[in-house]
């Protein structure tokens, strides 16, 4: 029996076994490829999405266990209408290879929703599960502070 799933405001009926992780439902079934596979064991954060605003590792959430609405990087903003945090990321030219950045941004967006003015320590705590092999961390930190400022002024 298909499983209902709401992603970025759209409702889908998913015809896959219930133990398929949300990551692979998004990528291979729905075709939302902005969410990335990195490790499959919640060790890198590349697959981070939000469920009802909370950042989760989509490689660890089975389809049957999704309770709530899923937001992916595509639901946060688009190239023509970027969210404030994406604009901050672009302003700081954060991405190098860019593969981890969807997860970084989804994690940071959840942090800012909960804590609009995070300290460096807050950022360290919230973001240390998100790996970046290019080493863009200093720019990620700067972009989070900028996004915080932009959201305060908005």
């Amino acid at each position, binding site marked *: 029996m298909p499983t209902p799933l709401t992603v970025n405001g759209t409702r889908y009926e998913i015809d896959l076994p219930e133990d398929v992780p949300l990551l692979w439902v998004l990528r291979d079934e729905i075709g939302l490829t902005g969410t990335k596979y990195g490790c499959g064991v919640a*060790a890198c954060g590349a697959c981070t999405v939000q469920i009802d605003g909370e950042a989760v590792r989509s490689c660890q959430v089975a389809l049957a266990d999704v309770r709530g609405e899923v937001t992916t990087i595509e639901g946060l903003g688009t190239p023509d209408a970027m969210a404030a945090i*994406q604009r901050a990321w672009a302003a700081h*030219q954060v991405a190098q290879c860019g*593969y981890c950045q969807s997860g970084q941004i989804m994690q940071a967006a959840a942090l800012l929703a909960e804590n609009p003015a995070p300290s460096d320590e807050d950022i360290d705590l919230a973001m240390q599960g998100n790996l970046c*092999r290019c*080493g863009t961390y200093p720019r990620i930190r700067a972009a989070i502070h900028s996004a915080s400022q932009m959201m305060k002024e908005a």
Partner: protein
Amino acid sequence: MASIGKIARRSFLIGSAAIVGGVAFGAWYVSRPAPNPLTPGAGGGALNPFVMIDVNGITLIAPRAEMGQGVQTTWAALIAEELDVEMDQVRVLHGPAAQAYYNQALLGEALPGKGYDKTSFGHALAETLGRVGKVMNMQVTGGSTSMADGYTRMRAAGASARETLKQAAADLLGVARADLRTEKAMVIAADGREIAYADLAEAAAGLDPVDAPLRDRAQWRILGKPVDRVDMVPKVTGTARFGIDVRLEGMLFAALRMNPHLGGAMRDFDDSAARAMPGVDRVVNLGDGIAVVASNTWLAMQAAEAVEIDWEMGPNPPDTGAVFDRIAAAFDDDANSTMRDDGDAGTLPEGATEITAEYRVPYLAHATMEPMNATALYSGIKLEIWSGNQAPLFTRKSCAKAVGLEPEAVEVHTTFMGGGFGRRGELDFSVYAARVAAEMPGTPVQLTWSREEDMTHDFYRPGALARFRGAVQDGKAVLLDGKIAAQSPTQQAMGRWLGLPAAGPDKGTVDGAFNQPYAIPNFRVRGYLADLAIPVGFWRSVGASMNGFFLDSFLDEMAHAAGRDPLAFRLELARAEYAPAAAVLEAVRDISGWTGETPEGTGRGVGFCYSFGTPTATVIEVQDRDGQIAMTRAWIAADVGVALDPRNLEAQLSGGMVYGLSAACFGEITFAEGAVVQQNFPDYDALRIHNTPATEVRILQNQDHISGAGEPGTPPAMPALANALFDLTGRRARSLPLMRDFDLLV
């Protein structure tokens, strides 16, 4: 300079593979222009292989792997600068696999010689030899060569296209080309009439290209300043398409299992359980492994795990200890190379103080964020492959061979890469995808390696041993004699890329050691090749990734033995040999406020390495926090000759440093039963946001040739940290990773 004919008839050692010019290809073939592979739409024109103008607008081709280093943006900026177009008026594509996109700088980098002492003749020779890269199909991104390769050629491509467009306008208007000017993709006549490039492209493409001199740096509009990357908005909105994101109509998804005992064969397998699992389409016998094709990557991975496979053991020693015994045994053979032999390093100068030390570094995985993958569609007469790769022509050739087609029947689409670091110069992931697709004509299939397959089937940075002997006298270095033993990635890669037998002196084994710009009167470096079949490959900064740590750590030991400040000790040696090297040491001293003194609980170390033509110095600061050691700050100074995009250079140098520090702290591939032990990030971790130091970068432009920045940030980071730990704790790190001997903040 030597003529191309003379050079092509001689033998060259490319890395360690002998290329016999006169036999492999005639001189005429070397100098013949490569065909233009672009096919513009109706009413448009391709003015050269890098500039195409048609109904889609102005397209610039940046045929280098975009794996994070920003190459496509700066490459396009080189063309745009002379073409007189703005960056927001162009789209930038990687383009097809084609000989026209050969890397002219790569073979020059492989020539023997220290590099920093290269004469004008040496530069001319490297350039001439570089053209051989065209016939060798060297469309390769690597060796930090892209900017050296494109700096003149891409500005010339832009200038020639501009002048040819002006000629077309001159013909149309009946005026002289010299009376026209160009701005923002328009040709403008003296009377103010304007014609868009788009309206001239078709006519211009029919003209003989017009050569034009390059503009002076003082006139640059785009180069020399930060340019917003063309891939930035796609990468922060999840819309950039990496290899793993390719989606085709009717596509299926595949997972792979290969023999964990590296180099071992597959005896037999039982796939009955796997074939009954949900979503599974088929199991493919690849001879040396299996692939499961399914409706979903995860279902394919689950089923691949359910296949019972009887693996043979591989040819390599069973465990890490035995592997390193084999590496150590290389010291008993004759040296493979003696690339530096100044003075008499065999004799201890009278009255000098001798010190010796042995160092060791482990095998390392690349661990790109995006696991290996490729997508393929086979029709029986044609193969299309979508692959994030650093070597499109080699990819085309090897995929063609794997499915029994001619290379011309294979089309390679090079996608964005979620990290490369050298790993994506290999061909295996593309070939496996092609082989699976060949089993299912008409159905596109995406093959994705699990993180575990990726980590256990890499082409590793080789483990290495170094034995150093040095002598100091009156506060100065008077002797340095180094021996380094490791497997040769170059020899293996030349076999994989070109099918060439590999022999001769291997520069990679000693790169970053023999070519350091230090005036030590008795200075010798010898390389020894370990006889092992563990797959090894190019890992960001290659030989310098191990030799930077070896040589520079030992120099630090010598400085302490001489009772000198480590930075002043290096500076004195560099000043007497190569002024730009001394200048980066001075710069890093100044920006870090180096005094040679550190407060209690704080340590500082300096590291230096000249690699890929870029002298780079790094200072790392560490602090003891209740017994745990944290890296707090870092400073980098590097000289790239010409800084085309300062902001991107800063990103590359600091990113290269983080890559080096990650390896120095935590990186280690070990073996058990001939298989790699580490499986995933929990046992192969890297720096994260909370343990990455705040970093300041200074770019210098004293050198008289442009050089790269993708790799040079990596080598000096490792000794800088080890030297800082010595300053903090008094314990000398002679073996990596450092987490084994120090309580680092994780």
